């Protein structure tokens, strides 16, 4: 790395990211896992949970939104300002895929920022009978998505995939 590059790299960047997804998908559980490194019991979110991650050269403000239907119309206020979106899906709940897809599309289409980065988490991977990743990508038409995205399989219960997915995400911001 050249001296000049290193000089510019030392400046701390800021990124705002929001965690969206249906209620009961495990958004808050994932946020708590990032904080504590273990599974923590949660209650349905009524407002917004906010956490800040201080990484070398990057400060990430994480907003965990409430997924219940009544709260969803408030998402765009926070999403508008965010640089990245984490969309969490309960991959064990086949019954709600259509609803999740609809909400996902609404969320994505409301975004104007071309540089938006999207992290999709197929959560609750520890459960039996979960949707396959490849099938999911197809079902959600992710290949047509005009943004940078990635899908990870996670479990906020065992912690699988949590670090790797968020590492990919923050590395995208550090560039």
């Amino acid at each position: 790395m050249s001296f000049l590059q290193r000089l510019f790299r030392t400046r701390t960047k800021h990124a705002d990211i929001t965690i969206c997804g249906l209620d009961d998908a495990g958004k808050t559980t994932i946020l708590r896992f990032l904080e504590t490194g273990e599974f923590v019991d949660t209650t349905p979110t009524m407002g917004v949970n906010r956490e800040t991650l201080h990484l070398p050269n990057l400060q990430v403000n994480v907003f965990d939104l409430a997924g219940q239907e009544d709260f969803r119309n408030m998402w765009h206020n926070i999403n508008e300002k965010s640089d990245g979106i984490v969309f969490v899906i309960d991959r064990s709940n086949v019954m709600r895929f259509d609803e999740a897809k609809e909400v996902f599309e609404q969320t994505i289409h409301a975004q104007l920022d071309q540089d938006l980065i999207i992290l999709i988490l197929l959560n609750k991977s520890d459960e039996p009978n979960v949707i396959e990743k490849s099938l999911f990508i197809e079902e959600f038409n992710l290949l047509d998505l005009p943004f940078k995205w990635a899908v990870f399989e996670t479990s906020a219960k065992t912690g699988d995939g949590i670090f790797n997915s968020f590492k990919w995400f923050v590395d995208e911001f550090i560039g």
Partner: protein
Amino acid sequence: MMMVDLSLIEPASFFIIVSSVINMAFSLALVITLLVNFFRKKTVGTFMLLSSYFLFSLTSAFSIAYRISLIYNEGVMTDTIYQMGSLTPMIILPAFAFLYFFGCRHILKDNEIVKTYLFAIIMVIYGLITAVIAYDNIYTNSLFSEPTYITNDVFTISYTWPILVAQIVISIFVTSRIGIRALRLARKSDQPIRKRGLQTIGIGVFLYLLAGLLSAFDSSISNLPALMITVSAFRALAYATAYVTMYLGWVMPAWYRKMIRKKSWFEMQYQQLQKR
């Protein structure tokens, strides 16, 4: 006009002045940061704390002015100087009242009845002291003229014993209660920032009490310059550290919070990865 024997107060006075200047510099710094905070937050609590420390730094200012003008006047006690010396006890009690009410908002859990009674007691004592000082200022002019008692600071001793005792009791009562309660709350709290903030407040308040007691002590030994100078030095040190600690505890500047904040799991994992 009455004369004060300068040879008695001069050598020690210099050190007390220096120590008071240090004290005032640190307290003013705290007042200014609280003022900045107040303009940002505009909370009643910050205002009370601000008022309290403003009055405390005012007492140091009076103490310095009193000593300097006395030396400048070659020991001649004028009415103005005399009144300057008698102002300190008038300021300290309201300062502690503000501190107490601030404590009630955030740390103490006194109910309305206790608060009202305590406030009434403080006001009665304040009224009595005011009456004594006013009477003295008008008729006798003798309370504050004893050179051995000329030390004005937060716990100044330059007046008769009842006034002094009332002051010491109230200050110990208010500060130690806030201190103890803050430390106790800190032990119960499991939120790292709040915990450390309360601990810092507790330590700062006790350091402040210690500094105040040292002031009371150094005036009673003003005939022993060497000891007095040592005590003055310790007092200056105690005030300085107390003000810095209280600043950290009450204001909790961003860098201090950042220092306390426990790193999250993700942050630690991420850092470990980078090190490798």
